[in-house]
């Protein structure tokens, strides 16, 4: 029952948004309110795990269920949304004041619409994680795409329109292919010796079920392409840099911190269904896509001109790493996902701050951040070192575990690519933070002051990362 609550609650708050259209303060407070309530429901659910309060049954088969796999994804999204909502509460007024839309005549999206879509986006993501049925999973991910598309239009400029159109079209094609893949999987089950009762994960992964190998492979390919597009794996990643360069910071934090993980969860579910005969095929496919996305991200991140696109490529690279972790070392996957989500959320919120203060995406025109935005600059460098896997961050541990389990040649190639990524990102971040600030930077004094106040949330995230890093190192010590 609680699972339904997790999905319905944001929708209720979303419904309240148009009513509070006139009073901005109450409108903004909707977001943190949802975040807090989601966390309360989660805590309540976790306190009594024994009665499966979370399962919702419809016609005998569980529709929404919390099992070992999606439990920590749920906690991650709830926690992430709480932090992001607090940030947005402070960020929205400042953004609308300091970041005027670039193309004259257009105005930024109306506040209540932004809050409405954000809440719908979160509820759809909760639905996609909680769903225990393949079809429902597809519906939830499709709905989350629909909810997040208008959010890219926050600035209504030409570029964001183009970004939204590309995001919408490419993702829906991908998810359409995923639907075809799901139907193929169901078909592979149907024509096999003992077919699964329904498309629910419990039935599909029941011990007796057998899948027809050839059809399963074709189905898996379609599912992988579909969810891979949404996840940002290599050949299908093209929408990500464009969408990420236009969307506002909290949406980006949600997109990369939470949505990518839902699609990763979907791919993980399809991989868990794979019968023994087909598993090596799926593994090689995932490895190829993983390495390809790290390669593409590595070479496209060098000499990147826009720091948001740089973070997008870093997300592509980390999704590639998740794909590799998925098939080589599942133990480290959960740590990697949490660490990546927190770190990427921190970086995107900081990018929001920088955009607030400098009102530009170009790396070259942002210099001397140590002088103008000291706290943001420190956190920005900390984020750089954390995302590239240097020891204080947990990503170092997962990267190390991945390298030990990978075959040696792949390990060497992976490390070279990760080094190129570090080189590209460090060049950009250092040229932004160090150096003498531009002469006309004092006009934007108020914007810079506003941006500096917003560093509380990323600071907390950085602290969380440090603690998580320490715990992960201790965990790694007993592991090896």
């Amino acid at each position, binding site marked *: 029952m609680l699972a339904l609550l997790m999905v319905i609650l944001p929708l209720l708050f979303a419904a309240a948004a148009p009513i509070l259209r006139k009073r901005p303060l109450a409108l903004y407070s909707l977001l943190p309110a949802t975040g807090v309530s989601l966390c309360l429901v989660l805590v309540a659910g976790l306190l009594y795990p024994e009665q499966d309060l979370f399962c919702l049954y419809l016609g005998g088969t569980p529709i929404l269920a919390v099992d070992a796999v999606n439990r920590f994804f749920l906690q991650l999204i709830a926690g992430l949304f709480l932090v992001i909502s607090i940030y947005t509460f402070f960020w929205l007024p400042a953004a609308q004041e300091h970041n005027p839309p670039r193309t004259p005549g257009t105005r930024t999206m109306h506040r209540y619409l932004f809050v409405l879509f954000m809440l719908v986006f979160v509820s759809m993501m909760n639905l996609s994680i909680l769903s225990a049925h393949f079809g429902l999973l597809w519906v939830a991910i499709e709905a989350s795409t629909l909810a997040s598309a208008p959010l890219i239009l926050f600035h209504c400029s030409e570029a964001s329109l183009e970004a939204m159109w590309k995001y919408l079209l490419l993702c829906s094609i991908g998810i359409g292919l995923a639907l075809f893949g799901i139907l193929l999987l169901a078909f592979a089950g149907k024509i096999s010796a003992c077919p699964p009762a329904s498309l629910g994960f419990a039935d599909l992964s029941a011990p007796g079920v057998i899948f027809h190998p050839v059809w399963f492979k*074709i189905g898996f390919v379609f599912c992988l392409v579909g969810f891979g597009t949404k996840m940002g794996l290599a*050949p299908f990643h093209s929408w990500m840099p464009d969408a990420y360069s236009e969307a506002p910071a909290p949406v980006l934090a949600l997109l990369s911190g939470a949505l990518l993980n839902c699609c990763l969860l979907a791919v993980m579910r399809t991989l868990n269904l794979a019968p023994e005969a087909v598993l090596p095929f799926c593994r090689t496919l995932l490895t190829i896509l993983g390495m390809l996305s790290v390669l593409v991200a590595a070479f*496209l991140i060098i000499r990147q001109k826009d720091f948001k696109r740089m973070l997008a490529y870093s997300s592509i690279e980390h999704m590639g790493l998740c794909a590799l972790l998925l098939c080589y070392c599942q133990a480290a996957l959960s740590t990697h996902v949490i660490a990546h989500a927190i770190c990427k959320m921190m970086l995107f919120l900081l990018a929001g701050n920088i955009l607030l203060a400098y009102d530009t995406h170009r790396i070259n025109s942002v210099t001397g951040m140590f002088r103008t935005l000291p706290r943001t600059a420190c956190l920005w460098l900390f984020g750089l070192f954390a995302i590239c896997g*240097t020891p204080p961050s947990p990503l170092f541990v997962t990267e190390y575990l991945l390298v030990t389990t990978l075959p040696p040649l792949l390990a060497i190639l992976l490390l070279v690519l990760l*080094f190129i990524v*570090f080189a590209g990102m460090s060049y950009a971040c250092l040229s932004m933070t160090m150096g003498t600030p531009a002469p006309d930077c004092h006009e934007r004094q108020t914007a810079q002051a506003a941006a500096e106040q917003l560093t509380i949330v990323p600071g907390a995230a950085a602290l969380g990362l440090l603690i998580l890093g320490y715990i992960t190192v201790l965990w790694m010590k007993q592991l090896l």
Partner: protein
Amino acid sequence: MLLSALSCFILFAAVIFLLFFGAVWSWLCRRQPERAKWLGALSAMLGCCAGTALALPAAAQWVPTQHFAFLGLHWQIDALAGFFMLPVLILGLAAAVHSLGYLKGHDEHRQGTYWFFFNLTLLAMLLVCAAATYIELLLSWELMGIMSFALVAFSFREQEVRQAAWVYLLACHAGAVFLILMFALSWTPGYTGTAIACGLLGFGLKAGFPILHVWLPEAHPAAPAPVSAIMSAAMLNLGIYGILRFLPPVSFGLLGWLLLAIGLSGALLGIILALAQVNLKRLLAYSSIENMGIAFLGLGLGFLGLSQQNAAMAICGLGGGLLHLWNHALLKGTLFLLSGAVFKSTGTLSIDQMGGLGKDMPISKSLFITNAAALSGLPPGNAFLSEIMIYLAAFQGVLSGNQVILAAAIIAAAGLALSGGLAAAAFCKACAAVFLGLPRSPRDPEPHPECRLMLGAEFFLSALALVGIIFTPWLWESVLPGVLQQSPLIGSTNWPLSAEYGSRTLAAVRNFSFAAIALIAALSYLRHRQLSRKTLDTGCTWDCGYALPTARMQYTGTAFTQPLSDYFYLTKGQNRSTIPVQGYFPQKAAVSITVSDPGGHLVWHPLSRLTARIAERLRRIQSGFLHLYILMILIALIAMLIYAVATSLPAATTPEPLPPAIGQMHQNSAPLQP
């Protein structure tokens, strides 16, 4: 004084807390530079003293190996760790005192951040030495990289400092990546060869191997002087410490030949490039590469001795190598601190613009000249002690009878001698161009007095170097064998490393060095007495009768070493652009020489250009056209489908039996037919 295990743990915890909380506290009150300065400096000094109280007994083996479990991680301090911690601590102490003076007029307001990163770099270097397992090593190695990067990039306003700091950061990260690869590969069977190669590359990047040294001459001039003193004196040794402790087990012969080759090429490359440098700190940085090369040469000869079961060669080589690290640390530390003093008084590091500083800074001048002479291996100095040991190891190889080793040993000895001669040339150039003669560029007339704090630090290190000569024979007999036994590479030999062979030579050299100093004093007294009765008038320099010599007529540093660097083709060909003298009354003639580091020029710049080209070509897949994106997805989809069908074809051709359930399925749909 037998320190119990508990007191060792307390000392270890004290060191960590002092340095860490000192750093955090000085960062917190960075608004008041004065308070931050004293907080940071005191915590650094106390931390170093506590560390010495911990490391010295361990190095001298008065205390057995200590194991600590601190913050859930395992640390251990044995003789080898203690031996390599001592330079870090001593240099840390000297650099802390020197920084107080150095930062007075220079970035005064940013003392808080300086001391924050200074203390944390010291802490990270100590933790690298104390790491027990590879996890602690990787953690503290990368932490050391980042903290020292922040120090190198301290004055990040200038563009070349940012560029140098970035290159340094990449070198540290690449080193850590190689180490990760080494530990990862050392467990997979069949890949121990590559594991050793990655280990050597990883540690070599930090220790300044010949090709991997590119970051060193960039980072040291960019860093503030006390920081570059610590980095070149203490941080380079950690590369060798890593090899001795963490390298997977390897055959002595192979390691010996590798280190010999690396050492010789490093020494010669380092010193030849040092000759042609115009920047004082770059010259010192290249000479660090040369001295690391000499240390590797010694270790290489030692390992060859171990492979030949030749006890004398082994102990002389290994002991000489480690001793040379120690001597180099003290001398190079003083030289870098002095270069900081020179930078503070003249504002520039370019040798060709200095000159005549000896009159303004007499003490620094004499300190610089004595330390430079000592570092180029001349007898009264302590570096001569380690070089004579390495020569003994080489000539043991000559006498050993194995012809291949004989050839290698004689070439090593000749190479070492050549690098010694060239080092003397490079340091003569440094001393003369900076301190002696007339000032080549205008300077403020009233010279401000030399800062006492900086002089104190420099004297402290020079005194330690002098005291080091006295204790070298004791160090050789009792400390070094114990230290070498700790390294898993050497410790595994079943046959004891007895050090009685070299001690007689060391004792003799020590006596003769002091005899030399006494003789010099006697002769100068004799001269003084002789001249006291005579007339002592002064005149201008005898320039073959020309009465008005100007500063421009002096030999500049570049001119001094021009014959040698031309001989090694550094300043010839495309590196030199000249405006020749034309006509009877030449208007303008000029020579501009740019010395490019062959390592970077031939290896690393082409590599980065290649990656940039690949990046340009790959950029086209992100063209912006929606249709191409969709096409890319479909092509990838079709490729994967073909791959799926191809792998499952063998399965599809075997006609599988019709599963029974299908038949049953058919029935239930039948009734629907009308």
